[in-house]
């Protein structure tokens, strides 16, 4: 009977507890925290990551945060909340965390936006965030097998002109950055090809190397070492200018098709940070960008630095969102049927 008594007390206790807490939560929104913001940060900053430890987001965190710790004189701690291509973490950031600057998240674009563009189940959107800074952008790249008959980007285009839809081209999954790069490219060039989704960048290039498909739209940082070793051939890259890592590979833009695309990673906070906190974070990334050791660290693992701070980052995300939405509206019937 002991049990029953316990259960009873719990049923009484719990609702009152929840109510009490809800009240507390409501009060925290506003209030004289201006002073606290001047001294920001006074406690560790938690970074919610939407992917597993050891993945791309974590990589960025491990490369970046030791420097940020020093610059801001605090500790960045990581919390991994993987699931639904990052959406579980970003939903939490948007809806459940305080906008006091002590909780940030690593935001991947275009994933951040394409998640909710494609699935209406996701309830967050770009307006829920204060983008702080983008750190790296891994540009898209077209690769083929080393023994492929397609020697250049022109060959690739010509083949598709003569055989519409005649090439199987891999991407890292429906809704991923490479998938959208393909859609953008197809729209720009008016060419058609067969899109073959794989579960990630790795399987996508491996399918090319193993001869299962003819080409892959991938990311430079991912395939760089394979291109260096001669396992893959790079045809063109989707960056604004040629990349230092592969200076001989032309950009798609210089070859006459205006498509810039890639996978970018940076930091964002929930909407409504105070100006002081925002500025402190902006300054930190400004300083980070100039640190030669940090720059070298990124180069070592073939991650192209692309620091965009504050409004510039926000603008970049907004534009990418609009373009992605437009493209998805065009093709969604094929996928939702």
């Amino acid at each position, binding site marked *: 009977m*002991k049990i029953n008594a316990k259960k009873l007390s719990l049923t009484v206790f719990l609702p009152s507890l929840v109510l009490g807490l809800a009240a507390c939560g409501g009060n925290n929104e506003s209030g004289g925290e201006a002073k606290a913001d001047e001294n920001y940060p006074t406690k560790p900053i938690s970074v919610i990551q939407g992917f597993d430890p050891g993945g791309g987001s974590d990589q960025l965190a491990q490369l970046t945060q030791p420097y940020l710790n020093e610059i801001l004189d605090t500790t960045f701690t990581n919390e991994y909340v993987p699931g639904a291509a990052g959406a579980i973490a970003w939903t939490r950031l948007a809806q459940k965390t305080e906008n006091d600057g002590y909780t940030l998240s690593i935001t991947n674009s275009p994933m951040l936006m394409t998640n909710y563009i494609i699935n209406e189940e996701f309830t967050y959107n770009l307006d829920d965030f204060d983008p702080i800074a983008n750190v790296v952008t891994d540009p898209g790249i077209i690769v083929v097998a080393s023994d492929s008959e397609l020697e250049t980007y022109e060959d690739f285009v010509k083949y598709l002109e003569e055989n519409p839809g005649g090439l199987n081209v891999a991407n890292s999954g429906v809704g991923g950055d490479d998938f959208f790069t393909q859609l953008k490219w197809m729209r720009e060039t008016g060419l058609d090809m067969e899109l073959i989704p794989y579960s990630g960048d790795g399987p996508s290039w491996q399918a090319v190397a193993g001869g299962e498909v003819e080409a892959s739209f991938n990311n430079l940082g991912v395939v760089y070492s394979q291109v260096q070793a001669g396992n893959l051939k790079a045809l063109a890259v989707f960056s604004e200018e040629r990349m230092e890592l592969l200076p001989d590979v032309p950009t798609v833009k210089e070859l006459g098709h205006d498509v810039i695309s890639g996978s970018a990673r940076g930091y964002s906070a929930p909407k409504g940070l105070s100006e002081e906190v925002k500025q402190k974070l902006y300054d930190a990334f400004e300083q980070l960008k100039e640190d030669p050791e940090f720059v070298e660290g990124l180069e070592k693992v073939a991650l192209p630095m692309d620091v965009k701070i504050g409004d510039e980052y926000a603008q970049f995300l907004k534009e990418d969102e609009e373009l992605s939405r437009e493209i998805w509206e065009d093709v969604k019937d094929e996928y939702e049927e």
Partner: protein
Amino acid sequence: MTVVLKHSIASALVLAMCGIFFIESLSYPVTAARLPQILIVILALLAVLMLVESVVRQRKQNKLDEKTEDSGLVSKVQSTKEINEIEKKEPIKIKRVLIFGTMIALYIFLLETLGYFILTPLFTFGALMYLKATNIMMAIILAVGFTVVIYFLFSMLLNVPIPLGIFF
């Protein structure tokens, strides 16, 4: 509960699941729906077969029982295997399983709010006492001990997240 009744309920549940999943799958694109639909159909067939099988077994069992009664022989050896398959040797203490199960469910559903430090010793102590596993002193020691040891191993040593709840 008879064997046939048990299996009828199970089959009905599986069939219900098949129904819900099949209706759900109708809205998917053809390629996405293909494999699930094949599996759903197979599953539904198997559920029906399972029910039929249990009926057949029950009949066999009944016949066997009749035979034993008629001949008055204690030919248990033959039927032991079948009986074993249907009934467990020791009687199940249903009430105990249900209460322990409820404790587990409560532990899980309250953990996120009340948190690890309050609920874990409470659950361990309650369970040990209810099951009459140890005396009261030992139960307290185990309850507190495990809470602390697991916390140290998981959170301090391995840095693995633990549901600490809202108070911590």
